[in-house]
């Protein structure tokens, strides 16, 4: 019988839903706190068949994924998918290369280059965000040169080396909301609107989730964006614009606890079912 390893650091309500869904589906689970593991290929013994990466820490999750794949255990999402989605610049590059609509963007390392890049992408306002990060943290909407100089100086002086790679994205005027689409193996299984009076609409920052019907356009952009990054279990942040939908970001260890109730879809059950499907293909 298949045992699903759930790689985690802390256990959130999302992991509890996955554990419950697996129980209902008759799938055994093994909780693996990666903080207590020793990833030594010479000694490692796995007591699970396939792993679902649910670490809240991107760094720990990514190393655990690389290790397990190296010893022959399939991981969802794969390291290939994670390495693209964990970095906003890499995600934007892959989307652009695959002709998936996404806001104009650039990456620079200094103030003069930032000024030129902003001119190239259509001027102020722009958004500067950390390449690795989540929940709307450290996002800065930059309306003018004064703010740009201040933010870049702060990042230069106070930031980690990674903060000194400045990702700049064209600011998209939203209708007080964005769309979060839950996409498994290229199929948008459900979606929510995330509404907020603030320009940052993340539910972690107070955005309210309500059901969004999966339109033909949303279905299509979800598929092409998912295909571009290598499929798996993804949450797509989508903006509505006059020119149509555009992909803002893609999350590879999605949180969904606030979205099962408004959508009426058991996202946790769909995650478990996908893990089983991947394992069956892997076994063949």
């Amino acid at each position, binding site marked *: 019988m298949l045992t699903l390893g759930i790689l*985690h*650091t*802390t*256990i*959130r309500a999302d*992991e*509890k839903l996955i*554990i*419950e869904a697996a129980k209902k589906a008759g799938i055994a689970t093994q*909780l693996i*706190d990666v903080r207590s593991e020793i990833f030594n290929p010479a000694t490692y013994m796995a007591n699970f068949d396939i792993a679902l990466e649910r670490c*809240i*820490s*991107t*760094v720990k999750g990514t190393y655990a994924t690389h290790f397990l794949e190296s010893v022959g255990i399939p991981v969802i999402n794969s390291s290939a998918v994670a390495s693209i989605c964990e970095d906003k610049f890499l995600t934007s590059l892959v989307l652009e290369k695959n002709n998936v609509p996404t806001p104009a963007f650039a990456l620079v390392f200094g103030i003069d280059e930032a000024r030129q890049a902003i001119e190239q992408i259509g001027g102020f306002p722009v958004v500067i965000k*950390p390449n*690795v*990060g*989540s*929940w709307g*943290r450290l996002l800065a909407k930059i309306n003018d040169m004064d703010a740009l100089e201040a933010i870049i100086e702060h990042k230069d002086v106070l930031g*980690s080396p990674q903060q000194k790679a400045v990702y700049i994205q064209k600011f998209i005027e939203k209708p007080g909301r964005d769309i979060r689409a839950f996409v498994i193996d290229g199929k948008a299984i459900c979606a929510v609107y995330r509404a907020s009076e603030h320009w940052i609409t993340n539910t972690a920052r107070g955005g309210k989730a309500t059901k969004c019907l999966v339109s033909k356009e949303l279905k299509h952009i979800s598929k092409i964006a998912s295909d571009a990054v290598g499929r798996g279990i993804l*949450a797509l942040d989508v903006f509505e614009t006059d020119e149509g939908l555009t992909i803002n970001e893609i*999350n*590879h*260890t*999605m*949180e969904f606890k606030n979205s099962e109730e408004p959508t009426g879809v058991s996202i946790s059950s769909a995650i478990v079912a996908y893990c089983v499907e991947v394992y069956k293909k892997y076994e063949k």
Partner: protein
Amino acid sequence: MNTMKDFSGTCPICDAPVTLPSDTQVSEVISCSYCKSKLVVESLTKQKAIIAKAPDVEEDWGE
């Protein structure tokens, strides 16, 4: 009301009693119903839960 399978512990911030349901997991993040502090379950033995302050958010945390 507590059932036989509930776990009990103490909030490390305000010392209030904390009761956890039987499906609680080690490393689970919980909130103290008194002081609202974010807490984490460190261990579960018999019906006793050892509870600590939840770790602070780190730069690479998220989705």
